C-alpha cells in the first residue's frame, strides 16, 4: 500500500486560511489502512479544524466525505455537486489522489493534507515500513525476497557495504542491513552460493530517471 503521514495541523491551517467553504475528501484505500486519510482521520481532522474555527473565527464551513479511491475517475465524478459548492478541496489521499481529483475537476484547487511517504506494509499495529521503491525492474528473485533498492540505504545491488554492523545499517541503528537479511535468507534456504552471483548494473530509465512512467495495454484500450 501507499503509506502517508498527515501534515502538521499548523501547515493545514495556513493552507486553508484564505478560504471559507472547505470540502474534505478522504480516501478509503491505502491511506485508510495506514490510518492517515480514511473516514476516521477525516473526522478527526475536521473536528480539529472546527475547534480552530471557533477559537480563531476563521468562518470555515467544513464538509466531510470519503470515497473508495481518489485515484479512479469513477469514484471521483459523483463528487461533482460537492466540488461545485466548495471554495477549496482538502484531499486526504496520497499525491496520486490529489492530482487525479485536479484532473477530473480542473476548475478547483485541491490541497494536500498528507505527506505521501512510501510503498510499504504494516509490520505491527501502528507501525509501517517501506518495502518497494517502484524502481521498474524487480530483482527480488535474485535476492530471495528482500529488496536491495528499497531496503538498503545505498540501494546497493551487490552488498553489503562496509557500513554493515551486526545486522544493522550505518545510517541508523534502527535500520536492518538489507544485505545482512539477504545473506541470512540465502544461508537459511541453502542457497548461499547466490551471494557470489554478480547482479549486473541496470538502466534506471524504467525508474523515475526516465521521467514519469506510463503503462499501456493495447488489448484493453478503448
Amino acid at each position, binding site marked *: 500500500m501507499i503509506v502517508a503521514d498527515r501534515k502538521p495541523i499548523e501547515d493545514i491551517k495556513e493552507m486553508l486560511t484564505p478560504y471559507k467553504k472547505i470540502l474534505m475528501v478522504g480516501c478509503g484505500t491505502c491511506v485508510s489502512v495506514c490510518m492517515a486519510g480514511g473516514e*476516521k482521520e477525516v*473526522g*478527526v481532522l475536521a*473536528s*480539529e479544524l*472546527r*475547534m480552530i474555527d*471557533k477559537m480563531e473565527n476563521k468562518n470555515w464551513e467544513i464538509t466531510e466525505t470519503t470515497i473508495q479511491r481518489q485515484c479512479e475517475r469513477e469514484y471521483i465524478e459523483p463528487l461533482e455537486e460537492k466540488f461545485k459548492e466548495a471554495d477549496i478541496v482538502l484531499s486526504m489521499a496520497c499525491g496520486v489522489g490529489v492530482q487525479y481529483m485536479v484532473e477530473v475537476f480542473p476548475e478547483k484547487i485541491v490541497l494536500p493534507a498528507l505527506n505521501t511517504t512510501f510503498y510499504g506494509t504494516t509490520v505491527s499495529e501502528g507501525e509501517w515500513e517501506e518495502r518497494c521503491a517502484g524502481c521498474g525492474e524487480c530483482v527480488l528473485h535474485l535476492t530471495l525476497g528482500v529488496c536491495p533498492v528499497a531496503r538498503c540505504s545505498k540501494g546497493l545491488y551487490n552488498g553489503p557495504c562496509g557500513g554493515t554492523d551486526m545486522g544493522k545499517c550505518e545510517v541508523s541503528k534502527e535500520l536492518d542491513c538489507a544485505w545482512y537479511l539477504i545473506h541470512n535468507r540465502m544461508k537459511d534456504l541453502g542457497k548461499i552460493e547466490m551471494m557470489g552471483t554478480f547482479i549486473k548494473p541496470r538502466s534506471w530509465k524504467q525508474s523515475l530517471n526516465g521521467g514519469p512512467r506510463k503503462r499501456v495495454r493495447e488489448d484493453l484500450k478503448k
Partner: protein
Amino acid sequence: MSNDFDPKIVAFCCKYCAYTAADLAGSMRLDYPPTVRIVQLLCSGRADVLHLLKAFENGADAVFVAG
C-alpha cells in the same frame, strides 16, 4: 483563570461498571458536580476518539472514559 471556573466534564461510562457506580452514587444520595455529564456506553471499548473530540467541540473542558 478565575477561581470560579467550573469545568464542564463529559464522562463516557460503561453501562456495567462505571455507569452503575454513578447510579449507585445517586441511590446513596451522594453528590457530584452537576457539570459532570454522563454518557452511557454499552462498553467503554465503544468510546472513540471522534466521541471525545465531539465533546470538546461542543464546549467540554475535560472528557473522561470510565470502564
